[in-house]
């Protein structure tokens, strides 16, 4: 419990980074019906997500990061 009180005393970046192969659970924050692709925005980092449906918008989905560019803070992932 004490550990919980003193956890996360840190400054977290606006641009979190991810590693290829990393599995993460995120809210699907956008969906483009014309391309059938989704977007997961984590802070100001953007992941283009394949293999999701429109009804998954604003819900938690488990995705696997395929690539991530630390310069542009963007990458691709698959559900």
């Amino acid at each position, binding site marked *: 419990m004490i550990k919980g009180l*003193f956890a996360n005393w840190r400054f977290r970046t606006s641009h979190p980074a991810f590693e290829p192969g990393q599995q993460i659970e995120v809210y699907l924050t956008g969906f483009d019906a014309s391309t059938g692709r989704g977007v997961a925005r*984590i802070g100001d980092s953007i992941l283009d997500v394949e293999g999701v449906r429109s009804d998954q918008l604003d819900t938690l989905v488990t995705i696997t990061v395929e690539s991530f560019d630390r310069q542009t803070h963007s990458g691709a992932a698959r559900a």
Partner: protein
Amino acid sequence: MNQPASAETAPVSQTTLEFRGGKALSALPILFFIAWAIFQSGLLGISATGGLIVGMLVGLILGMLFVKGDWKGYADTVFEGMAQPVAVTAIVAWLWAGMFAGTLQVGAFVDGLGWLAVAAGIGPLLFPAITFLLAALLATGIGTGYGTVIAFVALFFPAGVALGADPVIMFGAILSGAVFGDNLAPVSDTTIVSAVTQDSDVGGVVASRFKYAIIAAILSLIAYVIASAMFSGSTIAPEVAEAFREQTNPAGLLHLLSMGTVIFTAIAGRHIIEAISWGLIVAIVVNLVFGLAPGTDMLVFNVAEGGWAAETFGAWPLVEVVAAADAGVGGSLYNGALGFAELAVLILLVIAGAQIMMRGGAFHALEDWLLRTVAKTVRSAEVVMVTVTASINAAITINTAAQIAVAPYIATIGKRFNINGYRRANILDANTSALGYIFPWAGGVLVGYTQMTALVNQYDWFSSDMVVAPIQAWPWVFHGWLLVIVFLVSAWTGFGREYTTDRLSNRSSAS
């Protein structure tokens, strides 16, 4: 009992309401209620929750007049709003918290805290700072900021003034303590609403918000010592200080055990109903075993004299024979739970009004506007979350009601940036708690003022010029202001920020 899911995940129908005058008119019931609250409590100085219930009812009726087509959809939406788990969860928790708070009060807990202050020899320089600390401690234990304000204005305020502390600073310190407890207490209604609406467990939100609360509290403590050194208070006759000492009772400190039971069980992740029930059982046992309060202080059946019931049951435990006019049920369990009855009705109506606004599209229009034009980065999104929560709470008397109305915005904006449930709940709750005790129409300020005016009749030495008017308090609620500032700085710098990818908020009690 499992914690119900949040409003966002509850199965609700997708009725859409159309209003004459456009989507904005669906905000009429809530806006009318806010205007009513400002008029009633801000301008007229009436803090009655019952009056706000009428304001919300009239607002709901006015809104209906602008609905296009069949009004049945509007009526159905009112029911749909009231049936959401979020309000029911909060109401159930208030009933439990009310019983617990009342039982600690009859068990002389405040007198125990007072004994500690006197034994430590606290003078006018430190009295406001210590009052802030003790009020924070009590509010954290019992979870009711209003109850804390009432208890501390009744006991600590005259003592502090009697010892030479400045009355306005004393009132500010008490309100600050209430803010601290409202924000941090596991049993606080705002804590529970913040957790439930942001898909989080109560233990997790309390643990994660400790860092913001303690930073603001340490700065507030220092500020109260400095302010006390700068402003000399009134000097009062020594017999007043003596009267205060006579009221204190070290045995009341035994209820630290009851408080600790609730805090530790809640932080350990047990359901809040379970945590408070254990705390309540400990409090009742402590009261009875150590003679702090008889059973009838906690529950009493007052039977009318002269009747069959009085003759048959008059000698039973927890039964007292009284004059016919005084017949009824009483005690801390009864009074504590019943104290929230009006607020429970108000909350049901306010979330019905909020549901109308959602189905009518005004919520979405505002959300879309905020997301499109203001909240473009995670930093600006968090600043928007802080300022919107603070602004709406500044306008509404009962901060829990404001919190429930704004909670869906916070969830939506936060999720768009994958800000996790704990961070969202912390932004929502800190700014809700802070603004509920600052402005002159805020419920916390009004209950304190009401209690203070009663002191004039209670003590010969307490003159009406010692009463702090509601409008005087706002600059001195240091913890409230500092909590808002801490969150603005945190939003800007990323201090304490957590994404869903760092940690998902734990809803294990719901699964």
